[in-house]
C-alpha cells in the first residue's frame, strides 16, 4: 500500500455489464484521466451515467473489463480493495451497525495492525476534526444522518489514505444539512490536502467543491475542466444541458464567421457564439438567468404563461408567437398574460451543432 503518490492515472478504463439478450453494455467507456496529488476531482453526471462505476473501479470493488489504473509507475487495477488502501465514503455510509463510533473509525487502523494506543490517539484526533466529540461510544443507529455522515468521513480519512473516494455522500441529507456538510468536506480537504474523487449528480455540489470537474454521460467522458470553465463554456450540448442551459432552440444557420453565427427560424433571429463546428442546423443554448427582460440585442417577443415566484427573482415561462417555450429567470415580476420583450447578449448564446432529430 502506498502512503503517497504524485499522480493517479486512469488509462482507457472500461467496464461492461451483461445486459438482456446476451448483450453487454459499457457502463464506463474508455475513461482516461490524470489526477494530481492534492486535487479535488468531481465526477458529475446524471444517475446511471457510469460515475459510480468509475469510482468502484478505482476502489477495487469492480474489476475492469479493459484499461488500467496506475499510481505513479505502479499498476493497481489488479489489486483487491484491501490492498489499495484508499478511503471510501459510501452513499448510505455503510457504518458497521454493531460497532461504536470509536470502533467504526478505528476499524481501518485495527486492520493495519496498529497498536491500541496509536488507534486511540488517531481516532481521538479525527473525532475532533469532524466535530463528533461526546458521541464516541454511541452506535451508528443512535446518530442523526449528519452525524453518521461525519463518522463515515472520519473512518475513511483516519487511515491517512493517499486517495479519498466519496460516492454521493450528501444525497441522503436534507437541504440545509447538505450545505453544512458540503462546507465541512471542503474544510477537511483544505486542512488535510488529501487527493479526493467525489461522485455527484448535483452540479452545485460539483461546482462548489471541485478543483476540476469530469462530466460523464452514458459512460463517456464529455468534458474535463475547472468549474468556471464548465459553467461558462460547456464543451457540447449534453454538458450545457446538464449545467443548467434549460433553453435549447433548434434553428437554421443563416450566416457564420469570426466565431459568431446568425441563426433564424420559428420567428426568431438570434446571434450567438459558435462552440463547435456547425452544419446547416444549429442548437442555441441559453441559461434562464442570461435573459434580460427589456430591449437589447437578440430581442424576442413573447407572452408570460407562468410565473414561479422565488423571492429575489421569478422563474417565468414565456411563449413566443411561434409557440416556442422559454424559461427565463427575471428580477422583475411580470403578471401572467403580460407581453414582454426579452433580450440576451450574443456571447451568452452558445451555438452547437443540432442533434439528429430523434
Amino acid at each position, binding site marked *: *500500500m502506498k502512503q503517497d503518490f504524485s499522480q493517479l492515472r486512469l488509462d482507457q478504463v472500461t467496464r461492461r455489464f451483461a445486459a438482456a439478450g446476451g448483450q453487454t453494455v459499457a457502463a464506463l467507456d474508455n475513461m482516461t484521466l490524470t489526477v494530481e496529488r492534492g486535487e479535488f476531482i468531481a465526477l458529475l453526471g446524471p444517475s446511471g451515467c457510469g460515475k459510480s462505476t468509475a469510482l468502484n473501479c478505482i*476502489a*477495487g*470493488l469492480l474489476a475492469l473489463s479493459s484499461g488500467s489504473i496506475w499510481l505513479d509507475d505502479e499498476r493497481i487495477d489488479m489489486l*483487491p*480493495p*484491501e490492498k*489499495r*488502501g*484508499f*478511503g*471510501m465514503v*459510501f*452513499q*448510505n*455510509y*455503510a*457504518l*458497521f*451497525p*454493531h460497532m461504536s463510533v470509536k470502533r467504526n473509525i478505528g*476499524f*481501518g487502523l485495527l*486492520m*493495519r495492525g496498529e497498536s491500541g494506543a496509536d488507534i486511540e490517539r488517531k481516532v481521538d484526533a479525527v473525532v475532533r476534526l469532524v466535530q463528533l466529540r461526546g458521541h464516541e461510544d454511541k*452506535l*451508528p*443507529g443512535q446518530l442523526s*444522518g449528519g452525524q*453518521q455522515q461525519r463518522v*463515515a468521513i472520519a*473512518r*475513511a480519512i483516519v*487511515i491517512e489514505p493517499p486517495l479519498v*473516494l466519496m460516492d454521493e455522500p450528501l*444525497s*441522503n441529507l436534507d437541504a440545509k444539512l447538505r450545505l453544512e456538510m458540503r462546507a465541512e468536506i471542503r474544510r477537511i480537504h483544505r486542512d488535510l490536502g488529501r487527493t479526493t474523487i467525489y461522485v455527484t449528480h448535483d452540479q452545485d455540489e460539483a461546482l462548489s467543491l471541485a478543483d476540476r470537474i469530469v462530466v460523464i454521460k452514458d459512460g463517456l467522458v464529455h468534458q474535463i475542466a475547472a468549474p468556471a470553465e464548465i459553467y461558462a463554456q460547456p464543451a457540447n450540448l449534453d454538458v450545457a444541458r446538464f449545467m443548467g442551459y434549460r433553453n435549447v432552440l433548434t434553428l437554421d444557420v443563416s450566416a457564420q464567421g469570426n466565431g459568431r453565427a446568425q441563426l433564424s427560424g420559428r420567428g426568431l433571429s438570434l446571434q450567438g457564439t459558435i462552440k463547435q463546428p456547425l452544419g446547416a442546423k444549429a442548437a442555441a443554448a441559453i441559461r434562464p438567468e442570461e435573459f434580460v427582460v427589456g430591449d437589447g440585442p437578440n430581442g424576442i417577443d413573447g407572452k408570460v404563461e407562468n410565473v414561479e415566484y422565488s423571492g429575489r427573482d421569478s422563474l417565468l415561462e414565456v411563449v413566443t408567437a411561434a409557440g416556442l417555450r422559454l424559461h427565463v429567470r427575471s428580477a422583475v415580476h411580470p403578471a401572467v398574460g403580460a407581453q414582454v420583450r426579452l433580450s440576451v447578449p450574443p456571447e451568452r448564446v452558445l451555438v452547437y451543432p443540432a442533434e439528429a432529430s430523434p
Partner: protein
Amino acid sequence: MARATSPIHTRAAGFDRTLLLVLPAAMFMLLVFVYPFLHGLMLSFTPVEGGTLANYVKFFATDNLWTTIGTTLKLAMPATLINVGLAIPIAYQMRSKSPYQKWVTTILVVPITLGTVLIAEGMLTYFGPRGWLSQSLQFLHLYDGPIHLTHNYWGVLISLIISGFPFVFLLILSYITGIDPVLARAAATLGADPWQQFKQIYWPLLIPGIAMAFCLAFVQSFSVFPSAILLGAPQGPTRVISIAAYEAAFEQYDYSLASAIAMIMGFVQLIIVAFVLGMRKVFYRGPVSGGKG
C-alpha cells in the same frame, strides 16, 4: 391524511377494531396448545398411585427413564451443532447471486420435502450392512469390514442431520442475505481481507440469527421419535425420551406418567433454549444495515 379520516382510525383512540383480527389465532392457540398443555400438566400431577409428585419421583428413580434425558441430549446436541456448523460456511458461500447458487440451494433443501420415514427407509437400503455404501466400498477395495451405520446411535444421528440440515441452512441463509453486502465492501476498503470481513462484520451480526436457528433445530432434534425407532436401537443407545413417553402411554397405559415425561422433556428444551437466547443478549442485536436510506 386520507387515512386518518377512515372510520377505523378515528376510533383508534378508544378501541382499535383491527385488534379483533388476532382473535382467530388466539382461539386456535387456546384450543390446540394452551388447553392440552394445561390438561397434560394437571394430569402429570395426578398419578395412578402415590402423592402429587409421584410421577416425577418415579421418573428420576427409574434407571431406564431418567437416563433418556442424557441419551436424547447426546443425539440432539451433536446433530444441532453439526447442522449449524455446516450451514454457516455453506450459506456464507451462497450469499451472493451466482449461476450455481440456485442449484446448490435446491439440492440442499430437497430433504426437507422427505418425511422422516422415507429418509429412514432410504438410509436402511444405503447404509445397511448389505447396502450400496458397503457394497461399493468393498467393490473398490477401500474398506472390507462390516459397516455399522444403522440400528445404532450413528444411524439416528445421520438421519437427524439429513432431515434437520435444510431447515437450519434456509434459516441461516436468510439471515446472511439480510446483511447489507456494502458493509463487507466498506470493510474491504479499510483493509479487511475476506476472513476479517467474515469475522468482524458477518459473524457478529449473525450471532442472534444463529442462536435462533440453533434453538429451533435443537427443539426439533430433541423430540426425535420415528428415526430413533427405525434407524436406532430403541431399547439401548437410542432410547430417547419420546420413546419413554410413548411406552408409558401406549404400552403401560399410564397417561399420567407419560404426561410427566412430556413435561420433563419440555422443561429440558426450555432450559437449553432459555440459555442460548440468554447468551444472545450479550451480543449486538439491532439493524444489520449501515445507515439511513
